[in-house]
């Protein structure tokens, strides 16, 4: 049972345009969501997160939106840059209790110059 799903394995976007990466979850107990970026041959690095008490969190070019009723979150990158080309993973957890994280399968973003 895949509790966190990223249904788009890949996405290509022109430089300067918006990239939108999507993530769906099934477990309503999740209350904190994170996005990680991964370059080849490196470990994932934390990008941005959002608590379930919010519906939006911004950090520079990166914004994460959370729709709890739809159990859906999205990562917006504006404007997209070639250096953003990487695999993006969303993850979900409960802040108290399990200490476990469930990761999606990732979306490979390619930003075309």
């Amino acid at each position: 049972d895949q509790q966190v799903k990223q249904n788009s394995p890949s996405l290509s976007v022109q430089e300067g345009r918006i990239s939108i990466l999507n993530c769906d979850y099934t477990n309503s107990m999740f209350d904190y969501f994170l996005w990680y970026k991964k370059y080849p041959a490196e470990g994932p690095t934390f990008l941005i997160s959002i608590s379930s008490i919010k519906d939006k969190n911004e950090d520079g070019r990166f914004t994460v939106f959370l729709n709890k009723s739809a159990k859906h979150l999205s990562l917006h990158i504006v404007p997209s840059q070639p250096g953003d080309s990487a695999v993006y993973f969303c993850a979900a957890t409960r802040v108290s209790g399990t200490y476990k994280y469930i990761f999606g399968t990732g979306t490979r973003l390619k930003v075309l110059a």
Partner: protein
Amino acid sequence: NAGVTQTPKFRILKIGQSMTLQCAQDMNHNYMYWYRQDPGMGLKLIYYSVGAGITDKGEVPNGYNVSRSTTEDFPLRLELAAPSQTSVYFCASRTSGRMPEQYFGPGTRLTVT
């Protein structure tokens, strides 16, 4: 700070051999995790630890063992390696504070033939 370090970077094992993947962090994080990432898949949790002397199973613990004798180190032991354990292994750590972002090591690529 070196962050999270993992050794070795690469290893080839023969079926039935054993090895220990090393993980260390210098951020005084209480929580540490081991994940494996198979091609096209997300990260699957193998084991985690919430402090020295305390470990628990994740989603895919079979074939692995862990120990946590110090805050800094969290080695993962593979006994009787099998081809199904061919994967990239990531170690991660996080604080016990409110913000649950994990910090990942660079990974160990293991091939079992």
